[in-house]
């Protein structure tokens, strides 16, 4: 974090390691409550809907729509300088939860709220693969 040139990467912990392991295998998983059926994100160790600790990591469709987005023109650190302009988006998944991501394989000025998207995976290190989203129309 003190080295301004390094891209900040997630440090998986006991509660989130399964998410990052799945992403490394190019699978998107979500915590799913075995009692009330609610999907939530980001991952917690009890269901935010019914407080049940009985959770599983459920496969997720990886489909959703752009709920909102912003085109970043000023990089937060030198690690992102070569990427500007890039799109940070909030995606609403079919399963319900929203997540923050990048919208890729699409010109920044072509991104629209409501645009259908699907997950793709961007390997950024040996340990970390980030789920990002591309327009469904790119199929």
């Amino acid at each position: 974090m003190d080295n301004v040139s390094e891209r900040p990467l997630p440090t998986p912990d006991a509660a989130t390691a399964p998410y990052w392991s799945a992403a490394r295998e190019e699978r998107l998983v979500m915590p799913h409550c075995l009692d009330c059926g609610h999907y939530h994100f980001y991952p917690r160790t009890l269901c935010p809907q019914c407080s049940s600790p009985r959770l599983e990591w459920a496969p997720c469709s990886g489909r959703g729509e752009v709920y909102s987005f912003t085109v970043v023109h000023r990089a937060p650190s030198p690690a992102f300088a070569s990427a500007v302009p890039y799109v940070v988006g909030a995606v609403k998944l079919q399963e319900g939860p929203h997540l923050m991501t990048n919208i890729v394989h699409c010109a920044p000025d072509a991104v629209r709220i409501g645009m259908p998207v699907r997950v793709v995976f961007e390997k950024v290190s040996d340990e970390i693969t980030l789920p990002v989203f591309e327009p469904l129309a790119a199929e």
Partner: protein
Amino acid sequence: MTAQAAIVGIGESRVGKVPDRSALQLQTDAAQAALTDAGLRMSDIDGLLTTPVRVEHWNMPCGVVAHHLGIAPSFLATLDLAGASGAAMIHNAALAIAAGQCTTVLCVAGQNLLSHGTRAKAVKSMAEGGSAHPQFEVPYGPLVPSLYALVAQRHMHEYGTTAEQMAQVAVTMRHHASLNPNAHKRDPISIDDVLKSKMITSPLHILDCAIVSDGAAAAIVTTAERARDLKKRPVQLLGQGYGLRHSHIGNTELTTTGAVDAGRDAFRTSGLKPSDMDFAQIYDCFTITVIVELEDLGFCKKGEGGHFIENGRIGIGGELPVTTHGGLLSGGHPGLGGGFFHVIEAVRQLRGEAGARQVKDAQVALVHGNGGVISIHCTLILGAA
């Protein structure tokens, strides 16, 4: 119960670029100004509230500040509701007084956020400083403004809010700051200036974003009984509320916030309603924040905030003057202490001491603080005694 507490002293350090003062010196300047304002001495203080600072590592901020000021209060605490800390300090002081733990509480916050380091380091440390989730948001490269840009983009999509309307908020705050001798940025700007300023993270231009400042603010809260014997007209805490609906913005709905809950409870506890307010000190970390909060607090319907701020309605002399000291957009923003200036200004207005920017016959005001990414909220209703 809380109506028995009153704010009797306010103070500010110099605000803006103040390279010759450390965080503790700025807080000391503000505290001494508040004591002088109240006609009290440091030895009268038996309670202390402060917030964490970002520029230094203090192992226990309330202890560090109390020790620096040379006091050993019978009640002290460090509050961190991020940007809502300033408003929350006033309510927590009132609670401690009502509980009998102390009689006279110094609330103080601020730091040398601008002069402490380089701008690049400040931007990076803010981007990775917790507003964005370290695992699920930071790796995607949002700036702090990007998190609010998601709110702005969605609000524009759902309700037709325009870039011009957001710019109007920035223009109004700058005008208010131009009437505030201690404000950081005082040169007037136009809507065109905002729209032509550098696009940082669409749809937010640099002039849609709060500034970064050095500065500190302080207020002294005591019992209503003691307040009657002091120099200045007391300002009473009439009601308060809190709200939290999410921690991180990537995982939530974007256009309705916990300000709904904070405002509802503040009006309920005070027995007042939005139309009773003579002005409102709304947290303004970004232009969109003001629009969303005015809606959530009930000053207009959801989706009408963009229209609400038009035609001078939120300026001095308007129907609801908003954030009359110039706010975080122009007045000054030294981090967690930033929202405390909204409280200080409310007191100044309610005493009739706001000079060129005085709101006529100001008797009752709402103060709203927001922390995180429109995550945590504290609303106060203050009234002239």
